[in-house]
């Protein structure tokens, strides 16, 4: 297994690259950056449950692109150009001026919506890559103690959410085995909510009774030093981003 990077390295890397992407605003560069991020995740994955986060962020990205394209087709300013097809214009009441739903859909309008979607999705994918390679628990350890409440919230959210998917599966299976014809949202949500609440409370109690936040200073059992390779890793991102911003 490769030695883990400093918990902040990937986050800084992603942050710098997303600044670059937004500044350059180019679909193909954005997609290429996501490709690089995917490669990094593939090379540095360590089999922890967080690794799946990147995959999820990609799915969310695709959903956002699709949604943005759909909205772009339905609502929006008419951009002149090659007309692809025309949908009927919806009559809107007089108190909603300046908004047009429907109308001519041009190639330019569609591509500009997709382009915006891709930029947003790339940023999400970059942060997905960062959280896929850095356990949020490790991140918590490098955060200063004075953001104690944020620390507790972060740990609870990041511990409870992966278990959430597991619980949903378990509850659904139990209800299937019971022979419930249709497993409704309500029948899953109620037991799930109850369990998640109990679990979060227990975790908060556990952190509290183990003295989290009592001392203003916090020592490190295994200090995570910022090494040369962390520096070079971030440097690549800074260089790439500088080129993007400058051009």
């Amino acid at each position, binding site marked *: 297994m490769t030695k883990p990077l400093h918990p902040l390295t990937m986050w800084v890397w992603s942050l710098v690259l997303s600044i670059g992407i937004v500044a350059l605003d180019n679909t193909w560069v954005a997609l290429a950056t996501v490709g690089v991020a995917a490669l990094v995740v593939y090379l540095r994955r360590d089999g922890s449950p967080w690794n799946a986060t990147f995959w999820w962020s990609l799915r969310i990205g695709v959903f956002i692109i699709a949604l943005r394209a759909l909205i772009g087709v339905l609502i929006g300013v008419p951009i002149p150009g090659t007309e692809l097809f025309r949908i009927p214009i919806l009559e809107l009441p007089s108190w909603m001026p300046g908004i047009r739903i429907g109308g001519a859909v041009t190639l330019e309008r569609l591509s500009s919506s997709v382009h915006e979607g891709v930029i947003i999705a790339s940023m999400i994918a970059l942060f997905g890559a960062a959280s896929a390679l850095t356990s949020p628990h490790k991140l918590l350890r490098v955060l200063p103690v004075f953001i104690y409440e944020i620390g507790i919230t972060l*740990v609870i959210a990041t511990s409870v959410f992966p278990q959430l998917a597991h619980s949903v599966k378990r509850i659904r299976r139990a209800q299937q085995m019971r*022979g419930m014809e249709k497993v409704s949202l309500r029948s899953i949500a109620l037991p799930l909510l109850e369990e998640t609440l109990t679990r979060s409370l227990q975790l908060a109690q556990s952190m509290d009774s*183990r*003295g*989290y936040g009592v001392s203003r200073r916090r020592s490190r059992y295994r200090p995570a030093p910022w090494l040369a390779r962390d520096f070079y890793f971030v440097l690549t991102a800074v260089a790439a981003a500088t080129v993007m911003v400058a051009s």
Partner: protein
Amino acid sequence: MITFSNVSLIYPHSTKTVLEDLTCQIQEGEMVLVMGQTGSGKSSLLRLINGLVPHHTGGILAGDITVDGISTREVKPGSLAHLVGIVGQNPINGFVTDIVEEEIAFGMEALNFAPDVMRKRVEEVLDLLSLNSVRNRTISSLSGGEQQRVAIASALVMHPKVLVLDEPTSALDPIAAEEVLSVLHRLVHDLSVTVIIAEHRLERVIQFVDRIIYIESDGETSIGSAEEILEKSTLVPPIIRLARALNLSEFGTSVREVRRLTSDVRNIEINAETHSRASTSPVIEVNSLHIQYGSDIALHRISTVIGQGEIVALMGRNGAGKSSLLEAIVGVLKPNAGTVRVYGGNPAELAGSQRRQTIGYVPQEPADLLYGQSVKEECTQADTQAGLSPGTTFSFLNRLVPAISEHAHPHDLSEGQRLALVLSIVLSGNPKLLILDEPTRGLDYQAKALFTLALKEYATKLNNPVLLATHDVELVAELADRVIFLAEGEIVADGSTLDVLLSSPAFAPQVAKIMSPQPWLTVDHVVAALRENS
């Protein structure tokens, strides 16, 4: 070490006092058991010790609790972290980090210990709890017993003077439970740690404890030595029931003591009768079933047949494949090879009401099936689904647990009541087969006895089979006709309860250990054999 003076506790929006006027002192190096019925306030009492109650839960606390001279009223739980180590009921819910070593160091980091002190203490505690081999593993990949030991290790590493444990063995198989308890025993004796423990399965802990705090249902408490408390109590382990049944003059809490007292009982001659069960028509037929997840083999080509009216217990370590087998039999898990037949059909093809009428299934967390707003709503729904006349399910439930309010929210029921509710709902479909996954976690002896009775009635009256996965040897001894023992995905033993339980000392129930080499598993067996003999 710990002083309770006139402690009473009541939770907000509740009219029932959890504890009433508890006064006692617990000395250094003492091991104290807290016992009581399910939902009687054992956990509340434990969490009073480091101030989680009422600081985290709210509620009105009268009286005062001091730990090593510090009043829990005045400080937050965190300020007692160096003094009190607490291990909750489900340790997995309390883990803050991913890796064993980091988890153990977490508390020390929070209290700003020097790095060299931390290194030394982590090594110490890893050795003390034999966790060295798993120090770099992720916690979620450990077995239940190992997780429990990690939780104890991360409390112990702070060198607390008091260790508080809430049902530390309830989810563990007998061997893992013994491991955990022997560690506690060593801590008390070698390091003079004060240990407060709550546990339902008294048979596991009773021999180790010095004193018992018994919480009765109305919040009254009594404190005394194990013998004093158990003499009057209605919640007693088999070892005490045996002493009562045999009218022994003294009580003993360990197998060794009672063996000495009962040597004349054991020495009677009995004619070894071997009554083989009449073979019944098969209900569940499992034929070279093979299940694997990725490269992990869960079940390796197992075959077995379960016939009508049999009560079969499925035992084995955590992760031995019990749940996979149950899921395959119910038909929600597709086998990689082999077949499962239930009443001659493929269980995977059952759906809806047909499924409810064929297989009754009680999951590990009974609450998974409950989403109504009241007991009444759940019962009414069960009646309509099964086409029964209104009130049938509720009257059945009432027979199982009298005094259950139909307006109560399922969430507010005690563990035992909730299980009874789910069992009534499942049985309302009148299924021809009943399957239960670890049903008795968190049940006291009375609730377990009721539960045993209900299942036995179901099996004998309707001549239907019952299959249950469990770690509870005493329950198996009382209930099951046959035991299937799984290890590493294979059946290692399959036979009558008597044969399987007696063949392994770790899985033998308490009465069998006392009465060995006589083949008696329960108090009833002993009494029946003695009556026959006289």
